[in-house]
């Protein structure tokens, strides 16, 4: 089964939510206008409709997941969308007064927007230039979810820098890992590429080839108070091959047709995930740590 994806490397205007949704409407209109067929799945970066570095303004610019999905749905319809389309987008979430850096997977354009999953970023970078946990709460669960294109997982930015995250996602059945990201570019010593982007490329290709998953990386772009979001959106095959990517600074749409059978072929060729599944019970004796109880995730069941 093949499906078409469009990664939108987005450059928001800081804090101007209305302007950013208007820009998104223009992106939808471009996708609807063709000549290429509509993609099945549109992926946007982390904090795409607000910008990433908000500090205390995160409380002013957050949405409930339902409200955010409804806004995406409204822009899709305003652009002329009459069919359904699946979308992933990062946003700051207000969950009953607890704030998260989240991404949702929703189907819009139907009778009502349908949210398949909300992932709340678990690894909130709070060091150096980053200050997320000063303003936000950690997500407490890494779940996979069914999509029309196979089981998927979302990891937000630093989530993906911890090898255990794609490992757990793949063990739980993910065949596609979607990474909305906002990564300030740094390190100029690389050969034509920022060192931080080199690290992303290594991370993406390794997680794809180790677990036999597609990796869809959507990077925010544009400067925020001197910090340049490094774009570099990419699509990596389950064999760990970089199929296509964008540069750091362009505002563009990266499109690809993906084939679900590639996941099976990659896993048959390099059965590391199967090996891991077999050995995991033994490793678990060394690794198992009790999960903290009384978390919000436990109470809500999410």
């Amino acid at each position, binding site marked *: 089964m093949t499906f078409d994806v469009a990664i939108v490397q987005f450059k928001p205007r*800081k804090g101007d939510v209305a302007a950013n949704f208007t820009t998104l409407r223009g992106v939808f209109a471009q996708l609807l206008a063709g000549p290429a067929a509509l993609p099945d799945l549109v992926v946007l970066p982390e904090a795409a409709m607000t910008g990433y570095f908000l500090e205390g303004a995160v409380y002013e610019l957050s949405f409930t997941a339902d409200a955010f999905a409804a806004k995406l749905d409204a822009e899709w319809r305003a652009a002329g969308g009459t069919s359904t389309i699946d979308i992933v987008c990062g946003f700051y979430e207000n969950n009953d007064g607890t704030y998260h850096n989240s991404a949702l997977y929703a189907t819009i354009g139907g009778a009502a927007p349908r949210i398949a999953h909300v992932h709340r970023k678990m690894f909130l970078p709070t060091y150096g230039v980053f200050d997320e946990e000063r303003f936000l709460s950690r997500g407490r669960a890494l779940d996979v979810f069914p999509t029309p294109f196979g089981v998927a997982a979302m990891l937000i930015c630093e989530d993906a820098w911890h090898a255990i995250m794609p490992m757990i996602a793949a063990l739980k059945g993910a065949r596609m890992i979607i990474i909305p990201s906002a990564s300030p570019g740094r390190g100029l*010593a690389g050969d034509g590429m920022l060192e931080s982007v080199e690290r992303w490329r290594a991370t993406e290709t390794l997680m794809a080839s180790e677990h036999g998953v597609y990796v869809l990386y959507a990077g925010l772009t544009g400067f925020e108070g001197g910090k340049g979001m490094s774009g570099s959106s990419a699509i990596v095959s389950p064999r760990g091959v970089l199929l296509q990517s964008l540069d750091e*600074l362009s505002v563009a749409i990266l499109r690809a047709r993906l084939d679900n059978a590639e996941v099976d072929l990659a896993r048959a060729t390099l059965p590391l995930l199967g090996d891991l599944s077999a050995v995991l019970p033994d490793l678990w004796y060394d690794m198992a740590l009790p999960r903290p109880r009384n978390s919000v995730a436990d109470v809500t069941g999410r």
Partner: protein
Amino acid sequence: MLPVVDAPLHRIDAALKIDAALTERWLTAFLRDELIERRRITKAVLGLSGGIDSALVAFLCARALGPENVHAIRMPYRTSSQDSLDDAQRIVDALGIKCDTIEITDAVDGYLRAAHEPDPRRRGNVMARMRMLVLFDQSARLGALPIGTGNKTERMMGYFTWHADDTPPVNPIGDLFKTQVWALSRHMGVPLEVIDKPPSADLEANQTDEGDMGVTYLTADRILSQILAGYRDEQIAAVGFDLREIELVRRRVESTHWKRHLPTTALVSGTAINEFYLRPVDY
């Protein structure tokens, strides 16, 4: 007999290496975003001293905004060297940017006559602050944003006048060490006369930055990069640096943290600005 390959403890100069083409692309994009997209300002104004830092910033601005949108101001004092003026003109001619010359001698001397025996350091600070006064006033005249020209080495060493050189709201080279400024300048075609001359604030005759700081820029940058990477003095000395130079650099860094911050404000509420009330600069 197997060949033996030794690895270094760490690569001393790795943090100083830049891909100059990538750096140019990144910094010109930064300037376009900060001026045109964020502030809706298409023009830049900068003080052009004849030294390499302002020369490089002029090149970056011209590349980012177009030379017709870059306005340089030469601001000589009566003791400023003719070489500085000539080198600044060399930059203007090379880029085709606009340039005014506004002498600050009358304004500076007018104040200094009432200044109660200013020593050279105070005189230098008055000149630096006068230049920033001129730059901001010309910014209002031209509808152009003042662009900063301080590099990371002098910012880390505290080798600048507070609320003068560091005042412009946008600075493309403030995270580049001096040696990186040299590398990028060569790549961008800054005239060699400007690149190769001894760096000087030109506030006094025969003054050089390296003489003032007591250490060469190359050594300062290599030590600074080690300090910023978290290494202790003895670790830096172990890879071949002179302990006295390490201590000199560290002392300069640690005695000037205040120069890299806004003024200290007494906190008396739960809504203190930039303490509790936190909003990013571009919000």
